[in-house]
């Protein structure tokens, strides 16, 4: 059975979650009713308190300790309810921000924990190939000269007889590079050289003089291999990370927009 497309929409998930929450609370009643002065502490509540303690202390609490913990919890709960009764939650910037954060978190937590299907990720890869494409790589030879005129003169010589051995001045840069990434070229030769390299044709002919931060170069670009997108199987993790981060942001925004649209806002200026 194939589910219809709309079931994959995050908006629908969010709405369903909202409805489920609404129904759940409608069924169960308000968890904390400020007006209520009845507090029942169930076995489960005590187990939860004990568990929190155990995670910190690496051992279960004794009965006496658990009683104290329960007492502390109760004290907090009573003060919390009374604070709500007094309306201390209103006009408190922190409470306001905290609740807003929780709403944001609610919207994004689904994306955080969701396990996308391979199809979702394949679609994502197809929609954003440039984020995963291998770097373009370059294979080239270069000769270095401190002065531009020396470089120009050498270019004529090398064009005449094709022999470049012994030409160029000594510098601690490789004369020959095979299949190096754009990033590596830029890192080693600098931004100016890299930009120039992008405009050179990969005909295997010498060209120049090309400026760099070091001086001047003659360049022979032998091959430019434009990056390809790797097979999905090889980069599944990367795709998933990328999908997750982007989806997280979008869901937060979508969820907010949904709520925002229901409000009419006027701003006096």
């Amino acid at each position, binding site marked *: 059975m194939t589910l219809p497309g709309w079931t994959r929409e995050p908006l629908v998930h969010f709405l369903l979650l909202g409805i*489920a929450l609404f*129904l*759940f609370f409608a*069924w169960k009643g308000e968890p904390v009713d400020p007006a209520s002065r009845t507090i029942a502490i169930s076995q489960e509540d005590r187990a939860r308190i004990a568990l929190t303690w155990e*995670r*910190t202390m690496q051992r279960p609490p004794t009965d006496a300790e658990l009683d104290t913990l329960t007492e502390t919890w109760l004290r907090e709960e009573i*003060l919390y309810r009374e*604070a709500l009764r007094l309306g*201390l939650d209103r006009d*408190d*910037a*922190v*409470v306001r*921000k*905290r609740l807003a*954060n929780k709403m944001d978190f609610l919207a994004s937590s689904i994306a955080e*924990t969701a*396990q996308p299907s391979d199809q979702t990720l394949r679609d994502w890869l197809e929609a954003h190939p440039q984020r995963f494409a291998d770097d373009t790589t370059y294979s080239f030879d270069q000769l270095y000269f*401190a002065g531009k005129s020396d470089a120009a003169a050498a270019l004529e010589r090398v064009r005449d007889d094709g022999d470049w051995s012994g030409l160029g001045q*000594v*510098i*601690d*840069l490789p004369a020959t590079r095979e299949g190096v990434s754009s*990033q*590596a070229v*830029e*890192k*080693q*030769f*600098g*931004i*100016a*050289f890299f930009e120039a390299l992008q405009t050179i044709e990969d005909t295997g002919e010498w060209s120049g003089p090309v400026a*760099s*931060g*070091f*001086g001047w170069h003659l360049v022979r670009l032998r091959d430019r291999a434009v990056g390809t997108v790797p097979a999905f199987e090889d980069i599944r*993790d990367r795709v998933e*990370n990328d999908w997750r*981060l982007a989806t997280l942001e979008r869901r937060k925004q979508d969820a907010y927009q949904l709520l925002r649209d229901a409000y009419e806002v006027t701003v006096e200026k």
Partner: protein
Amino acid sequence: MKKILGIVVLVAVLAAAIWWLFIRHDPVAKAEDVAEAEAAVTIADYPQQVLWGDTHLHTDNSIDAFGFGTRLGPDAALKFARGEKVTATMGMEAQLARPLDFLVIADHSDGLGATRRLYDAPRFMIQDDTLLRWHDMMQESPEQSQLAIAELITAASNGTLPDALRDPENQAENTRNIWQAHLATLDKYYEPGKFTPLAGYEWTLMPGGNNLHRVVMYRDGYDRTSQILPAPALDGNITALFDHMDAYEQSTGGKVLAIPHNSNLSNGLMFELTQADGGPMTAETARRRALREPVVEATQIKGDSESHPFLSPNDEFAGFGDVGWEIGNLSLTAFKEDDQLAGEYLREALKRGLSIEQQTGANPYKFGMIGSTDSHTTLATGDEDNFFGKHTGNEPNGERANAEQNLGTRVGRFGWNYLAGGYAAVWAKANTRAEIFDAMMRREVYATTGPRMTVRFFGGFDLGETDFAGDWVADAYKGGVPMGGELSDEGKAPQFIVSALKDPDGAHLDRVQIVKGWITADGTTREKVFDVVWSDMDTRRSVGGKLPAVGNTVNREEATYTNDIGAPQLQTVWTDPEYRAGQNAFYYVRVLEIPTPRWTLFDAVRFGIELSEEAQKYAVAQERAYTSPIWIGPAPAAP
């Protein structure tokens, strides 16, 4: 109706359980993927290209960074470092022109995430008066928030932090959650061979405001690092940290090192001649220290610790980035006496190492040098033209250069005292955690104050002459030792090969110097700076032992310079002309660029402001690199 709803809830619970048991994101499984990717990386025979990184970056998990206003976390830090555009806390877009190769996020272990929790905590839940006041200040405004954190730092250094913040038991649960989530994030961004996040934290020992901080850095991934918690420092001492490191290595089989930093703010305590308790240093302490701390951070935003004019009066280039930081300790709760400087600056510490070695047989201060940022903005920016500030309060704005920057104290430091930070240059055989870590252990690293110049440094006795063409590097590895290495005295003068290539997108080089420190038979330590190669050697001649200045092309109105002076590359083979057989010594290289504008000058032009007279005086500087030393000493006795 209730029945239907009950079923709905039951189904939801079942679905959640299935997710938790079977398809939840699992960091341990991820660790296996990481190991596989690491295994696929080619390891070179010897280091071919230098890797650039920052080992000292803070995000919103740091107690002070959050308080200062940073709202960006580790994800943003890693994206930024690998070259992506991010929006800084104060709203500006930020991107590195050139990405970094590796990054250590070093959030403070004390109170990891505590300020963020304090900030988020409901007001009525906070029982401690001091915490409540800080909470309110953090909410009130960025300025008040900074003031609150200044108070917090002072309280930490005076040992008067509220119990809720100092009690490690109290913090353990929170720390564990943040630490493990952080480690999982690191694995997510790790691309072996391309970009490497390493696990680490900052250990912040600060007795009386004297800075004894270390960055702790791990070689390992989630499977090992998640087994421990970062060591707290506030009530500790250095032995406790070393014990913690030993215990980690023994229990997990992993590896860890520590990097002292801002020794310039320790009021003489970082590189003492004695034990911490005042007695003479034992060989065991010395050995332990050398083993645990193979590298030291020589330069960063809060000043440069390489040399000081008081200690090196004959070195005209000593004193880079010292202004403002030499008046007292970190919190400025104690001013500095001249006799404390010797325990603070690296060159002197290297000399002290020789002294202690002469007395005990072990050298505690046999360290290499790196630079880093110590940025608290989540953004690792080490360049002058993109300085994003020490903390969010001085992300680029018109006031920051002239502003008083005393973090709550009322004396002496200004915005312009801050440096733009530095970088760690690492000669690793591949861009992986293991290779980067191992390069630091063998000290094959160097520091720069920001520019990415490529510096090679080899020492040996039979290196021969080189024309610096062909495979000279491979030959040098065969015939000698690289930076960080040790030579056994053979009774003849050691020979050194230096090669410095400018930053391809930066300024030309002025000169290359070799700094030598040695100890005489009677125990006196000495130092000397040799100019070994410089630009325009034909016309720039040494007069009375001093080389004329390279010149200055900086246009102060436009914050520009030209590369009309200096040289793109400086290389030489140098033999120590003052070698004495049997004398223990170290040699390290200092490379100077031609003068360039500092970040303050870029600010002045960008924001159209007038720099104060003092700020103006220090608006142009010669940026530099420091290599790790090569030591020479007696051959180790045959076993």
